């Protein structure tokens, strides 16, 4: 296949993309506005230059990702006010019997497990203030617990198709179903989780010493649940959705359709106030994703991403180089995700990997490598993931000087955890490479 040459349309599309990314990453304006502005400019100039039409722009928006995200946001917004998360958190905290190390493990396990199905941000928004309260009652510094919860929610989210938006985008583009995603990522995420917890227990060893044997958690978990009937309904619906996620490939249903089935049932059964419910959807996130899809769709339509893919294919298609390519992709994705938003990176990389496939490269391992990199890299710095930012803000709100999490304090733990988890992921990936190919 002949490699196309770089042309003016590609230059124009690249220029618009770079300008939009500068606006997004420098936060000159809200990232959603920057993405939308870039998308509109891409469609206008792409249409004028003749490489991108409005129809192509609309087709570039991944409906499966958008609808799944929206439906899950709505389902979680119906679960959240029932108090189920608080109940779980208090029960686990009491089970730890005041042992800080056990408490950290229990809270991290809960946050990780919830993050495999629910949005990381929602999970930490609920767990972070509860964690501060519980740790204050035990006279412990909440900072290590908050840092650990954010990191473990990011790691937990990497395990499933619906755990993190980049996974959803990758799964949607690559046609990877829920079960296949879990079977490939789970065996990597589990050792990564164990190593990361071990690292944090070591790095936080001074802060995790019991300081007050008489301290008790004076919280009544039974008062956390304020609507038992609603809780039973939404939990049963979510359980059904999870079961259907396991079956969606067999049933030939999109993951988005599964979540919409759950949403439709929940709306009909629970009848929430529609006006209040709609305010729970993070429209700015959806707008951001839609803008990015249109932006990157324009670059793809210009032929630039195909050109990049063709050049990469020359390397990746050489015998024995596929593993190296995958590992390089994983680490580049991981390191970049520590400092920039992993969503734009993922959206940009997806068509490049897809272009490699058109060049005859076996891209299956590259999808897994990309998912692992963007999923684990966010732990490196305080700005690497939204969950990190939320936990830092909660530490600030606690007004405890010792709980303040500075960027340096985060990186002191985040960097070892990020490098440790990427190393473990690389080792498992390389050892069982045939399973990922």
């Amino acid at each position, binding site marked *: 296949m002949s490699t196309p040459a770089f042309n003016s349309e590609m230059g124009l599309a690249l220029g618009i993309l770079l300008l939009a990314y500068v606006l997004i990453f420098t936060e000159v304006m809200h990232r959603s506005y920057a993405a939308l502005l870039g998308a509109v400019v891409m469609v206008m100039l792409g249409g004028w230059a003749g490489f991108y039409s409005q129809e192509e722009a609309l087709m570039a928006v991944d409906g499966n990702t958008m609808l799944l995200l929206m439906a899950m946001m709505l389902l979680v917004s119906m679960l959240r006010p029932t108090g189920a998360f*608080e109940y779980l958190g*208090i029960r686990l905290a009491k089970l730890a019997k005041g042992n800080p190390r056990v408490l950290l493990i229990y809270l991290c396990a809960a946050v990780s497990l919830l993050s495999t199905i629910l949005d990381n941000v929602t999970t930490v928004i609920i767990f972070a*203030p*509860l964690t*501060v*309260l519980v740790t*204050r*009652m035990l*006279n412990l510094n909440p900072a290590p617990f908050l840092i650990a919860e954010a990191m473990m929610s990011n790691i937990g989210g990497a395990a499933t198709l619906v755990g993190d938006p980049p996974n959803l985008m990758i799964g949607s583009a690559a046609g990877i179903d829920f079960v296949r995603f879990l079977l490939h990522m789970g065996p990597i995420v589990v050792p990564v989780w164990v190593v990361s917890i071990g690292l944090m227990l070591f790095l936080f060893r001074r802060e995790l010493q019991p300081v007050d044997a*008489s*301290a*008790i958690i*004076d*919280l*009544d*978990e039974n*008062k*956390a649940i*304020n609507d038992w009937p609603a809780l039973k309904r939404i939990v049963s619906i979510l359980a059904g959705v999870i079961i259907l996620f396991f079956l969606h490939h067999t049933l030939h249903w999109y993951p988005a359709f599964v979540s919409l089935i759950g949403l439709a049932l929940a709306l009909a059964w629970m009848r929430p106030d529609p006006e209040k419910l709609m305010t729970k959807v993070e429209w700015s996130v959806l707008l951001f994703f839609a803008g990015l899809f249109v932006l990157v769709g324009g670059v793809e339509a210009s032929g630039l991403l195909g050109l990049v893919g063709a050049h990469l294919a020359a390397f990746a298609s050489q015998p024995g180089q596929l593993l190296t390519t995958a590992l390089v992709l994983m680490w580049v994705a991981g390191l970049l995700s520590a400092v920039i938003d992993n969503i734009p990176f993922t959206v940009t990389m997806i068509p490049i990997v897809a272009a490699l496939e058109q060049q005859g490269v076996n891209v299956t391992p590259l999808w897994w490598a990309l998912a692992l990199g963007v999923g684990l890299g966010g732990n490196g710095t305080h700005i690497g993931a939204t969950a990190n930012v939320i936990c830092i803000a*909660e530490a600030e*709100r*606690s*007004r*405890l000087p010792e709980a303040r999490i500075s960027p340096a304090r985060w990186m002191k733990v985040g960097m070892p955890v990020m490098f440790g988890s990427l190393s473990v992921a690389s080792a498992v990936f390389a050892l069982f490479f045939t399973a990922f190919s």
Partner: protein
Amino acid sequence: MNLRDLAVPTVLATPGMRVADLFHECVRVQMPGIPYRDAMGRITGKASIRHILKMTCLPDYLTKHSHMLGDHLDHLRFPEVNSREILSRTIDGFILPTLSHVNSSAPITKALAIMEQDNTTYIFILDGDEYHGAISIMSLAQHMLNLAQS
């Protein structure tokens, strides 16, 4: 009835005022807050007991989970709650930039409507930068009782 006749005169909070002095004044006039006059002589906000207590004694994590709190929290000695230290601070960091107010010629209904809108139980009577005092729902209730008796 002019609102001015119902107003309870209070002193104005000023830069550098101690929290203890603010609390004394609020307790004396039975008002939860008083207006704040800045160094330029303009009334630019209010100093409120509730806001100071919220900012100094009530971290978000306690408020969010108040319905689950047990009855044996006192022994925890939350370091956030330190009365002497709080009372010795100045009010400068606790000024709310908005204050509910009406003109002295406004009807009582308007004052009540603004209090309801602003979710407060007291309001200041201001004509420009001229401050006449504050009225609370308690003083309005007293006024209604007085009217009924006369």
